[in-house]
């Protein structure tokens, strides 16, 4: 069976409709998720790495609603080169929603190592910082008696735009099934300051870094492509036939494919009749 190719505008419209959230409904589910996942394992408190960006701001606000602001500890962890505006945005958010907070500068922790690796690329340096923040957040979670709440969104996870055992590390992740553009819808709906919503997204691992420049595509465009291919199961060729850029589709698809390892636990060599995660597959909730 063949049909005339659909024009890009029809597919774009379809994606935009599909990506539109009922934010009230989603918010209720996410608040319930955080409360349920923490409470059933005996926790009432949460720890969140707050960067000043939209993802961690949204997670912080949802967690504050779910657990009460006093049960949420937001940790700001600037490095020497971090954008001061990020810190200001983070502190503004903390004061608005009333969560607990602390600032832990990571410069003096990270520098002794980086000084021994002067040749390290920006990506390596950024990974070291992300993993240092993970250490700080996890240690604070033990001290505070809370679980670490993740802030990686679906777009980042699919594209592999995150540091394994760094910012990708968490106990529970409320926004891992929300694309970046859906995170924006949620942020608007729960009154995250527009300054945080409107500024260009950045991992802020080096001065002037921009997500969209790193990725070579805007979040709006990449979310449409991801949604059509992975949620609606369009074939890449159908998108190309409809006028989407061949090179862009190929690039996005290959990024998702090549980063599959980041979405899976480390591979275990099979030897026995009952291997963890293969035949040994109890639900996570089994433990509680």
């Amino acid at each position: 069976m063949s049909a005339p190719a659909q024009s890009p505008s029809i597919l774009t419209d379809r994606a935009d409709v599909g990506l539109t959230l009922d934010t009230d409904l989603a918010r209720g589910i996410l608040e319930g998720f955080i409360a349920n996942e923490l409470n059933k394992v005996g926790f009432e408190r949460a720890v969140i790495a707050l960067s000043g960006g939209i993802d961690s701001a949204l997670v912080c606000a949802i967690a504050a609603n779910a657990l009460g602001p006093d049960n949420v500890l937001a940790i700001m962890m600037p490095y020497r080169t971090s954008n001061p505006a990020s810190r200001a945005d983070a502190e503004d958010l903390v004061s608005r929603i009333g969560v607990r907070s602390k600032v832990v500068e990571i410069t003096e922790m990270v520098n002794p190592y980086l000084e021994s690796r002067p040749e390290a690329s920006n990506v390596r340096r950024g990974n070291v910082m992300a993993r240092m923040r993970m250490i700080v957040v996890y240690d604070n979670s033990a001290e505070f008696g809370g679980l670490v709440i993740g802030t990686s969104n679906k777009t980042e996870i699919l594209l592999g735009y995150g540091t394994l055992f760094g910012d990708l590390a968490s106990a529970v992740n409320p926004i891992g099934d929300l694309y970046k553009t859906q995170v924006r819808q949620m942020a608007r709906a729960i009154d995250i300051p527009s300054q945080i919503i409107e500024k260009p997204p950045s991992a802020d691992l080096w001065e002037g870094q921009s997500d969209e420049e790193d990725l070579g595509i805007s979040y709006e465009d990449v979310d449409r492509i991801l949604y059509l291919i992975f949620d609606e199961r369009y074939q890449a060729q159908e998108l190309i036939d409809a006028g989407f850029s061949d090179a862009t589709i190929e690039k996005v698809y290959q990024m998702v494919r090549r980063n599959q390892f980041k979405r899976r636990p480390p591979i275990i060599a099979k030897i026995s009749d009952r291997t963890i995660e293969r035949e040994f597959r109890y639900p996570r909730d089994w433990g509680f």
Partner: protein
Amino acid sequence: MRDFRIGLAQIAPKLGDVEANLEKHLDYIDRARAAGCDLVAFPELSLTGYFLRDLVHEVGVNPSSGVLDPLLEKSHDITVIFGFVHHTPAHTFKSAAAYVEDGRILHIHHKVYLVTYGLFDEGRYLAPGDSVRPVDGKFGRQSLLICEDLWHPTTAAIAALDGADVIYGISCSPGRGISGGENELGSISTWHDINRLYAQLFTAYQVYCHRVGYEDGVNFPGGSEVVGPEGDVLARGSSDREELVVADLTDAALRRARIKVPLRRDENLELTMRELQRIHEEQYG
């Protein structure tokens, strides 16, 4: 049965890469031809690899799409059995074994018993086949079965009752069960037991074509073999190497086996049918 030489292509397919695997098929077909083989068999899902999960929908092949043409072209010189994901016109996906001869597909068997227990998830991704039919190729009557099909002796029994002189089991069997101090993994030694048992009980050639290599941390331990109708292992592959395993199948060996132990002659199909009918009525009537 006509005498013929078989080559078992004990390969390690690349998971999800139909193009690369097709190239490897063409290479092994050439090698088998060079080794004087009349037929070359590949393992289960040889064109795609095994633990496909959601890739099933990307690697499924419509046999009339042209993708298989290079392979069909080579079958003028040598018969080919291979495994692939059959993307049907109704957009279901089935684990399939194809028998290709003289440039065309003579027969496709769809895996009847999908494995959905232990480490297996086939029933989530694939639709089951609903028939066990023989193929009358140039060497005689043969039967294609896929892996778990053979763990249900009824499928092999149907093949034998139907007169198949050669029963092929193409397989992807994850290596497991290292306890017991045997030199062989439990999973593969069970296969060798099955092959020998079926060959003797059905007085047929039992051909087991397995694979090697790793997928997502799981090892496939080779051990492909051809077992003669008296349970004699004519050739067996290594546990860890890609290779062509070659054996000669003769009608004379079938003759000797069936004279010594005429199980086929004595098979009572009427009785079997009667009792199966009764069981069916009692269970489903």
